[in-house]
């Protein structure tokens, strides 16, 4: 098996779909000549040409709308945002248009559109660090996909491209990995090396709405995505040494959400910690707690613990950013609280 970084895995999935289906096109800032700010799309312009790889002006609302119009007329566009913070420039196009067209047309329209880009706190200050998924999780008509490993990223981007709905595909800057040129620093957590780095070369699709149990355990369940998944796995390693058996579930997509896998785990462990890098208030963690309450209340032996970012714009200073974003110690503390009642 091959070792691929996450950005290389996403790239391979996109390239294979573009080879297989000429209706797939790519739009975004610096995606062609420059190969993407995080090099996910490098060399694609050479292979597919300017008729399929569109280097756009800095017009997020405009090129999102172009993607929608192209999706409505037979193409499968992938729209890249240089940082996912910039998708807020296109909120009307995403929330009022892409997400609503299917219902407004009485099911006559389909909008096969992937909106993708990087997020995550990496020392870039408040406008290049935010986790955006909760806004779109709150938007009926959208799907929200969260790849945490290179294996998942390839299978999920292929499913996202093949899906007939608008899909937000969220990439974490710290997970891109050193295996890709310009991919930034590889995550040093040992856990990321341990799972899912083998990526088959042949195309494969991971269905949206299928969670993955990244680590089996019996005492407590952690539900986490993206970088927080890897920090949770680190916590699971640490606590194993103390004789605590932690199960770690990666939902892989927040919409649709695989409630069945989560509920089965909670029925086994009776203790839950939800972890998310987005802010706590009305965030992903809030929704997960409510979902567990709805489906698993009588399986719980203790209140669900929630670990999420502090409700603040993300500050620049490294110490402050660390304080805002959940760290390994925060997750470990929450697990111990969950088990202490």
């Amino acid at each position: 098996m091959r070792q691929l970084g996450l950005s290389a895995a996403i790239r391979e999935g996109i390239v294979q779909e573009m080879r297989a289906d000429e209706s797939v096109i790519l739009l975004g800032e610096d995606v062609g000549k420059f190969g993407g700010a995080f090099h996910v799309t490098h060399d694609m312009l050479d292979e597919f040409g300017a008729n399929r790889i569109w280097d756009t002006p800095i017009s997020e609302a405009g090129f999102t709308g172009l993607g929608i119009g192209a999706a409505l007329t037979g193409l499968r566009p992938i729209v890249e945002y240089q940082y996912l913070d910039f998708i807020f420039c296109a909120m009307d196009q995403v929330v009022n248009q892409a997400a609503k067209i299917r219902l407004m047309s009485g099911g006559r329209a389909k909008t096969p559109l992937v909106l993708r880009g990087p997020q995550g706190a990496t020392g870039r200050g408040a406008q290049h660090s935010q986790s955006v998924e909760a806004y779109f999780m709150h938007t009926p008509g959208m799907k929200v996909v969260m790849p945490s490993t290179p294996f998942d990223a390839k299978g999920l981007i292929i499913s996202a491209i093949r899906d007939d709905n608008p899909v937000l595909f969220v990439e974490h800057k710290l997970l891109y990995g050193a295996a890709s040129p310009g991919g930034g620093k590889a995550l040093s957590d040992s856990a990321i090396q341990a799972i899912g780095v083998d990526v088959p070369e042949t195309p494969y699709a991971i269905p949206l709405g299928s969670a993955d149990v990244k680590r089996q355990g019996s005492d407590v369940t952690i539900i986490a995505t993206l970088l927080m998944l890897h920090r949770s796995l680190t916590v699971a390693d640490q606590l194993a040494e103390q004789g605590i058996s932690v199960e770690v579930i990666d939902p892989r997509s927040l919409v649709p959400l695989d409630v069945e896998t989560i509920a089965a785990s909670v029925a086994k462990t009776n203790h839950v910690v939800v972890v998310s890098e987005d802010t706590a208030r009305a965030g992903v963690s809030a929704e997960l707690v409510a979902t567990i309450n709805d489906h698993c209340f009588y399986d719980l032996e203790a209140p669900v613990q929630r670990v999420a970012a502090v409700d603040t714009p993300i500050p620049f200073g490294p110490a402050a950013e660390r304080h805002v974003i959940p760290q390994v110690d925060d997750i470990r503390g929450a697990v111990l609280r969950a088990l202490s009642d």
Partner: protein
Amino acid sequence: MTSTVEIRRDPVDCSGKDPAMLLRMFRKMLEAREFEEQLYYLFLTTAMPGTMHQAVGQEAVAVGVVSALNADDTITSTHRGHAHCVAKDVPLKEMMAEMFAKREGSCRGMGGSMHLTDFSKGMLGAFAIVGSGIPIATGAALSARVRGSGQVAVSFFGDGAVNEGVFHEALNMAALWKLPAIYIIENNQYALSMTVEESSAVPNLASRACAYGMPNRRVDGNDVVAVYDATREAVERARAGDGPTLIEALTYRIRGHARFEAAGYRPEKEVEAWKAADPIERLAAGMIAAGAATAVELNRVRAEAETVIEDAIEYAQSCSDVEAEDYLTYITAEN
């Protein structure tokens, strides 16, 4: 503040135009007019759900533009979109059923007046957030380029929309890439209560195209032949690969902004003057003057337009109501 646009009442110059096309234009304008007049009456007298925005007086823009297109060319529309749909051959019965929130409606009763859609007719949707359809039509133009289909995409929008950011973003990209797009400003002179002069620093809206090096035209929007001619030129340019065009069609919204909005911000004299410049009657006069039709023939079309709308209403009333859980299958597509 009152309108400063010149009001023309002269007959439309029909010389050299195919009588069959003129008659079709006349019919389509009448159908659009009758559709909305009956809708207004239905709102007054029956339990119609929701709201609606009439384009009474603006029909020459929709019909003139669409008459210059092929059936497989695409358009985007707005909250004031009935006439665009009529022009694009969306079935009147399905349109009317949609107004009544019936399952047989254009959008299965899920969209309503402001979201009429019919992909089988190249009607990509009515987008009721001002300006939002502009980049979407531009995407349809980009798609036509990618697929090599030879199609042209048209976006209709009002004078208010030119002050939305997406207008500029989309026009820039279309001009930059010479996309086969046509942008139609239906300048009815009022964005709800605000005149063009009160909301745009430069009231010549067509001139906005200059910043993008885009050909542009101002036309008499109550002259369906003038609109048609300008659009045909734009279509030829688009199909030849020479890029987009911005057309500003000067017209007037005879009714208020929405349903029962009384438009008290406009002088009565102004409204009356524009009523006397009715685009349908100007075409009728022009057709008779050019010998393209007789008054008797035109009267027959008037009667037929009334009948076809009566039939549409009767059909709509016989359709089945949307049930409470119909929407559940329309939220997301199943691959």
